[in-house]
């Protein structure tokens, strides 16, 4: 999901699993680049992991932590989301009211 225009637009990565929806800022903490090199194309690996297309850092989608590659010890910036009916809301439910 992108908000705004141009290179500096906020880009979020939304991931739905049996544990719910996780949202992360789409920025690899290694070189501060998006995780994807091409629009909408991400590299999902087995065991709910995602790989940054640029330098192969691998992140766990459950918590955003880098488990292999050049960003090891760092993590994706998590964004709080909540679901109301079928809507995904950025922030907590308090913000929905």
């Amino acid at each position: 999901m992108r908000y705004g225009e141009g290179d500096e637009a906020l880009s979020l990565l939304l991931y739905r699993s049996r544990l719910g929806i996780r949202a992360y800022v789409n920025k690899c903490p290694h070189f501060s680049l998006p995780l994807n090199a091409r629009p909408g194309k991400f590299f999902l690996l087995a065991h709910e992991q995602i790989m940054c297309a640029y330098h192969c850092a691998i992140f766990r989608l459950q918590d955003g932590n880098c488990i292999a590659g050049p960003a090891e010890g760092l993590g994706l910036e998590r964004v709080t989301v909540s679901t109301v009916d079928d809507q995904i809301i950025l922030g907590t439910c308090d913000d929905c009211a």
Partner: protein
Amino acid sequence: MSTQTANNAMVNASAASNRTGYRSFTLGSFNFSRDEYFVHVTWPAKGQTMTHTASADAFLRAIMRDVAWGFFYGWVNLDDVIGTRNLYGQVEMYAGRYNPGYSVNGLDLTETFDTPEILATFKAVLDDWTNEGFDPFASPDETGKAWVGCKNGHNRAAIDRQRQACKRMPGLPGDAELRSDNNGFPVNRAFEDVSQDEPEIHAEPGFENEVHAMSLFAYLSRSDVTWNPSVSSVCGRSLCCPTTEEYILPIKHGNDRVEWFIQLSDELDWAIEDKQTGAPRAKVKMKAGDVAAMPADIRHQGFSRKRSMLLVWENATPGLPEMYESGKLKPYPVEF
């Protein structure tokens, strides 16, 4: 024998050789093996098996960069015959494709792999073939000849080092640390005369936490690797990647975008070739203060007889490779 890595990538490796102790590795149709002095790469072409031999130290230095850089931008020629091309999520492994002696005669091979598979294989090769005491990131003067001979242990502490990267600039709160004796970065033997003074910052009231400065010379004088840029400044898509260079750049880098070089100290000679054919295009001697833009249609290799400081300025804007390949952008930044 196949082994599965922690990331579920498969590595096809043989048992250790009874004679040398080294394993051999298979990646698609390519086979990699090493002996006391040499690495041997084979691939099928025209119904025969092509062979390529390289000095093991040169090969290990080259593949170390490819692994550490995550296949980098564009083409990483491990030598004049074999190399990789980063497709950002997948990687091409080629032999002879950019060497007309092979490609014109149909003796080349290119295969595409998912990045985790080729990365896991290259890491396994490095792990098995790097002997104790040999550091592929170091200059020959610093690491000696432990690469020679039969298998003798490992040097995982050296090969598992990551490129140092910052979020904005080293030394800022919450960002990468400045290098010092205390965090394992002593001044390199070649830079003992470099001042370690840090800049004084006199910010106007109200701006105390918004101004930062660091001595890039002091930072680079403590680099523990050669030909391995760190990231010392991130501003949007602009990445300043300074590095210290000694001996030979172990790979020939064929960039998929224009790359700017600023020589900060000493001298560096560049051999520049056509990216597709390897035909010579230019030789450039850069002295301290010189600036050069490496076009997007060349491959380059550097030679530094004394450890020198180089600033590599990368444009990390997504979509640039496609803009150069389509002709939307010219391969050079300036028309004379």
